[in-house]
C-alpha cells in the first residue's frame, strides 16, 4: 500500500456545482410561451423510479427537465412508463435533496462542508481505521448496484463486507434458484396460455413491459389466476382472484405439487431426464394432499386441484411466476416457498420451453483493463453470510443487512459506507437501526435527506441525481422472457442542480485520500468504451439511442453438454434436494414449515404489505406528484376486511391504533371486501420520519416499525410478515 499526498488529488478534483434559478412549475401561459420559443432536446437515459431501470427519453427545455417517455426498444419499459417514472424525473428539483456535502457536528446538527474537506476527512479516518482494525472492519451497505466500484475498493483493503438490501426483499428466491436451477428463469408472457401469480403483483411492483405483455396475453385468451390475500391490482385483469390465508402459500404449492404427482399430471419425461431428487421430495410430501393444503390455506381443495389440472392441461405453456418481494423475504418458510416454486414449474416440465419459463437473453460486456494490484487476503464476513459457524447457506454476495447494528456493537464493523440505501426506513425496527450511528465512521451517500442519513451519518455525500450522471451500460434482464439481448445506458441529461458528485468521483477522492493510489484509473467514458468494445458497436451509437437490441441468442431446450443435462448445479439437473442445506443439518427437500406466528384473537391480524402502483421505495413518498395521488385516493390508509372491521366497530375512514411488541401507531383504515379477513394490509412506501423530507414526513405508517430485526437462517431474510398486530378503534389516547 503506497500512501500518497491526498492534497495533490483533491486539488485536481476541485468541482463546482451549478444551481438553477428557474421554477419547476410554470403556469400554462408561461409554458406555451416558452414552448414556442425554446428548442427541445431529447436525451436517452435510464429511469431510477425503481430498480427496474427502464430505458427512457428525457425531454429538456431551456436546460430543465420537461417530461419523460419510455424507450420503445427497451424490454422493461416497452415504450411505456409508470407513474414513478414520470414523478421521480421531476424530483431532480425536489426539495428533499441534499445539496452539498454535510458533516454532523457535536450538537447533532449538520454543517455544510466542501467536497475537498469531506473527502479528505473521510479518507483520513478510513486510513486510521484500516490501520488499527484492518480492512475487514470496513463495510459497504447498499441497495445493490454499482458493485464493481465498491468491490474494487473492498478488494484493495481486504474486506469481504459488501452487503445489499436483498434480504429485506427477495433473497430466498435467488438463494434457492441458484442452488436448484443454477440460474433464474423468466415467465414467457408472450406465449403462455396459463399464468399463475402467487404473491406477485406486477401491477403494483410494476415493470411496464411485463404488464403490457400480460394484458396482451389476456387479449389473446391466456388464462390469468392471481392467488393473494389482497385483491391486488393485477387481480383486476385476472380471470380469477383466489384469496389465500396470508403466510400459507407454501401449503398451497405443496397441494398443487401433490395433485400434479398423485394424479400423474406431471411431465414424467422432464422429471426423469432433468430432475434430481424427485423421489426424495415425493416421499417427504406424499401425505400433503390438496385437502391438507385446503385446511391450512382456506382455499377449497377442489379449487387447488382445478388450478393444478388446468396448469397441467396447458403445460408446458403454463407457469407459476417465479415471484419477487411478496413471498421471498417475509415468512419463516420463504426458502421452502421458493423451493416449491421450482418444484411446481419443473413438474409442469415448462422450463426452457416456449410459453413456460425461459432464460433471459444475455450478452457479455467488456471491462476497462486496469493494472493488476496485489490485494490482501479477506477476513470472514461480518454478517456471517456463508460463514460455516453462522449462516452457512446465506448467499455471501447479498449478505444480511438487517443486523448491521449488532455487528457494530460486536466491534466487527468500524467504518460503514451506506450507498443509496435507507435501512432506517426500509429494514426492520428503525429504533434498532439507529445503532448504525455507533460505528467509528458512518458515511451515507444518498440523493435525499433520508432517515438513515439524518439519524446515523457522520458525513453525507450527496450523489448526483440519476438524470445528472452518466453510467456504464448494463445488460437488460429479469422477469420477462426474451430472446434478444439488450443493453442500455444511463446518460446525463442535465447539469447537476446542486453541488453533488457521481459515486465514481467520490470514491476516487476518498480512496486517494486514504492512501490508495490510482484505484480507479479510468473515467466513465473509458468504461463505456470498454463495455461495448466486444459488441462491435461504437459508444456513440449507445449514447444516442440509450438502448440497443442484439440478434436473438436464446433457444428453447434444456441445456445439454456432452449429451448430459448441464444447468449450473452439481448434477447438471434441476435439484429438488439441496445438498448444501443437508450439509448444514436442514432437510434437502422442502416440506411444510408453519409460519412463525398466527393471529388468534378477535382483534389480531397478520400485518402484510405491498407496493402501491404509484410508489416504489420509500424515497417516492417525498415526491409531491406521487403523494398528490396518495392524497386523492387515500393511499396511506391501512386495508381491513369489512366483516372483521364490523366486529370491531370500525368504519371506513376511521382512525385505528395498530400495535405490536415493537410499535404502536395510528392510521386511517379502508374497510374493504377486497382483503382476506386474517390480515391488515399496508402499502410499503410510507411512514417517513425525516423532518427534512417534508412531503413524506409522518405520512402513513410502515410495516418495518412493527417487526424486530430477525434472520431466517437458510436465506437470511427478514421475515417481515411474521408479525401479529392488535387493532383497536380510535387513535392513541
Amino acid at each position, binding site marked *: 500500500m503506497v500512501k500518497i499526498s491526498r492534497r495533490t488529488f483533491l486539488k485536481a478534483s476541485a468541482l463546482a456545482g451549478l444551481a438553477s434559478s428557474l421554477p419547476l412549475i410554470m403556469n400554462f401561459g408561461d409554458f406555451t410561451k416558452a414552448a414556442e420559443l425554446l428548442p427541445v432536446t431529447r436525451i436517452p437515459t435510464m429511469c431510477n423510479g425503481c430498480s427496474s431501470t427502464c430505458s427512457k427519453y428525457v425531454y429538456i427545455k431551456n436546460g430543465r427537465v420537461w417530461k419523460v417517455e419510455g424507450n420503445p426498444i427497451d424490454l422493461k419499459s416497452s415504450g411505456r412508463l409508470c407513474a414513478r417514472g414520470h414523478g421521480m424525473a421531476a424530483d431532480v428539483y425536489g426539495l428533499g435533496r441534499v445539496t452539498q456535502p454535510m458533516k454532523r457536528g457535536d450538537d447533532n446538527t449538520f454543517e455544510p462542508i466542501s467536497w475537498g474537506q469531506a473527502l479528505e476527512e473521510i479518507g483520513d479516518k478510513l486510513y486510521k481505521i484500516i490501520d488499527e482494525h484492518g480492512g475487514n472492519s470496513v463495510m459497504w451497505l447498499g441497495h445493490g448496484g454499482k458493485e464493481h466500484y465498491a468491490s474494487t475498493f473492498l478488494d484493495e483493503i481486504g474486506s469481504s463486507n459488501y452487503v445489499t438490501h436483498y434480504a429485506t426483499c427477495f433473497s430466498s428466491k435467488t438463494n434457492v434458484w441458484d442452488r436448484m436451477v443454477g440460474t433464474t428463469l423468466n415467465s414467457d408472457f408472450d406465449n403462455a396460455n396459463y399464468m399463475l401469480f402467487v404473491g406477485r403483483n406486477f401491477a403494483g411492483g410494476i415493470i411496464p413491459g411485463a404488464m403490457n405483455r400480460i394484458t396482451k396475453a389476456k387479449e389473446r385468451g391466456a388464462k390469468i389466476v392471481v392467488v393473494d390475500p389482497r385483491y391486488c391490482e393485477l387481480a*383486476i385483469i385476472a380471470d380469477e*382472484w383466489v384469496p389465500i390465508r396470508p403466510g400459507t402459500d407454501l401449503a398451497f404449492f405443496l397441494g398443487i405439487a401433490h395433485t400434479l404427482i398423485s394424479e400423474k399430471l406431471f411431465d414424467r419425461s422432464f422429471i426423469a431426464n432433468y430432475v434430481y431428487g424427485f423421489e426424495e421430495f415425493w416421499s417427504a410430501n406424499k401425505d400433503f394432499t390438496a385437502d391438507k393444503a385446503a385446511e391450512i390455506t382456506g382455499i377449497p381443495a377442489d379449487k387447488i386441484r382445478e388450478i393444478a389440472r388446468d396448469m397441467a392441461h396447458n403445460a408446458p405453456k403454463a407457469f407459476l411466476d417465479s415471484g419477487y418481494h411478496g413471498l421471498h423475504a417475509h415468512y419463516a418458510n420463504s426458502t421452502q416457498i421458493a423451493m416449491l416454486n421450482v418444484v411446481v414449474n419443473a413438474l409442469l416440465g415448462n422450463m426452457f420451453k416456449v410459453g413456460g419459463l425461459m432464460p433471459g437473453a444475455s450478452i457479455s460486456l467488456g471491462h476497462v483493463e486496469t493494472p493488476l494490484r496485489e490485494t490482501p487476503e479477506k477476513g470472514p464476513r461480518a454478517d456471517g453470510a456463508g460463514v460455516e459457524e453462522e449462516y452457512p447457506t446465506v448467499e455471501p454476495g447479498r449478505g444480511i443487512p438487517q443486523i448491521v447494528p449488532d455487528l457494530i456493537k460486536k466491534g466487527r464493523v468500524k467504518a460503514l459506507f451506506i450507498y443509496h440505501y435507507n435501512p432506517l426506513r426500509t429494514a426492520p425496527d428503525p429504533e434498532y437501526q439507529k445503532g448504525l450511528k455507533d460505528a467509528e465512521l458512518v458515511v451515507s451517500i444518498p440523493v435525499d435527506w433520508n432517515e438513515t442519513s439524518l439519524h446515523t451519518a457522520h458525513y453525507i455525500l450527496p450523489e448526483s441525481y440519476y438524470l445528472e450522471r452518466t453510467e456504464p451500460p448494463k445488460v437488460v434482464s429479469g422477469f420477462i422472457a426474451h430472446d434478444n439481448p439488450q443493453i442500455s445506458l444511463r446518460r446525463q441529461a442535465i447539469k447537476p442542480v446542486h453541488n453533488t458528485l457521481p459515486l465514481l468521483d467520490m470514491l476516487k477522492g476518498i480512496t486517494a485520500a486514504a492512501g490508495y493510489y490510482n484505484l480507479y484509473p479510468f473515467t466513465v467514458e473509458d468504461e463505456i468504451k470498454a463495455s461495448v468494445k466486444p459488441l462491435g458497436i461504437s459508444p456513440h451509437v449507445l449514447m444516442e439511442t440509450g438502448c440497443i437490441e442484439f440478434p436473438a441468442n436464446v433457444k428453447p431446450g434444456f441445456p445439454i453438454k456432452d449429451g448430459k443435462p448441464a444447468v449450473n448445479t452439481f448434477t447438471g439437473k434441476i435439484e429438488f434436494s439441496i445438498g448444501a442445506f443437508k450439509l448444514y443439518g436442514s432437510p434437502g427437500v422442502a416440506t411444510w414449515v408453519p409460519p412463525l406466528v398466527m393471529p388468534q384473537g378477535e382483534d389480531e391480524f397478520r400485518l402484510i404489505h405491498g407496493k402501491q402502483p404509484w410508489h416504489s421505495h420509500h424515497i417516492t413518498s417525498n415526491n409531491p406528484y406521487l403523494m398528490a395521488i396518495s392524497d386523492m385516493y387515500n393511499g396511506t390508509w391501512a386495508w381491513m376486511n369489512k366483516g372483521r372491521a364490523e366486529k370491531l366497530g370500525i368504519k371506513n375512514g376511521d382512525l385505528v391504533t395498530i400495535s405490536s411488541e415493537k410499535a404502536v401507531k395510528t392510521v386511517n383504515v379502508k374497510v374493504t371486501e377486497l382483503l382476506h379477513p386474517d390480515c391488515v394490509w399496508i402499502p410499503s412506501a410510507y411512514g417517513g420520519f425525516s423532518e427534512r423530507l417534508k412531503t413524506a414526513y409522518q405520512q402513513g405508517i410502515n410495516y418495518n416499525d412493527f417487526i424486530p430485526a430477525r434472520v431466517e437462517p437458510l436465506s437470511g431474510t427478514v421475515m417481515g410478515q411474521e408479525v401479529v398486530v392488535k387493532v383497536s378503534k380510535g387513535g392513541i389516547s
Partner: protein
Amino acid sequence: MARFAMLIDASRCTGCNACRIACQMQWQLPPARYYNRLEHNEKGTYPNTKWEITPIQCMHCDNPPCRDVCPTGATYKRTDGLVLIDGKKCIGCKYCMVACPYGVRQINDDGIPEKCRFCAEYIIEGKMPPCVSTCMNEVRIFGDLDDPESKISKLMARKAVYQLLPEKGTRPRIFYVRK
C-alpha cells in the same frame, strides 16, 4: 377533416396513475391539479368481489354543456371535435364547471377553468397524447374516426361501446368498451 375521439377499455386499467402524471408533466401542472382521474368501484362481498376502475377526463362532447353555458364564448368546439377554451375571453365565472356532468374542469393559476385538451397541439402533428402513449395496459386508444384505417375506427367497428351519462345528451367523444 378529422374527427378525433378516444376509446377507453376500462377493464384493462389497473390504476397506476401514469396517465395522470404524464399529462401533468406534459402540461407542467402542479401536483394537485390533474386533467384525468380514476373512479374506483368495489363490487360484491368477500370473496366474490370485483374492483373496477374507470378513467375519466374531458369527454370532448359533441353537444358540450360547458360551451352552451359560457357567456363569452370562451369555450368552443373545434371542427375536429376538440372542446377548448380561449383564456383571453374567459371571465372566470365557472358556469362551465357547474354545467359539466363529468366534473373535469379545474381552475388554473390564471383563474381559467382548464381541462384535458386532447393535447390539441400534439395530435395535429400525429403524436399521441401522453395519457395514451404511456399506458402500459393500452387502456386508451386515440385517433380519427373519419379515418377508416385508424386503430380506433377498426376497434369501434368490432367492439360494443357505451358512453358515460348518455341521458345528459352530451354525446361524448370518449367511448368505453362494454364488458
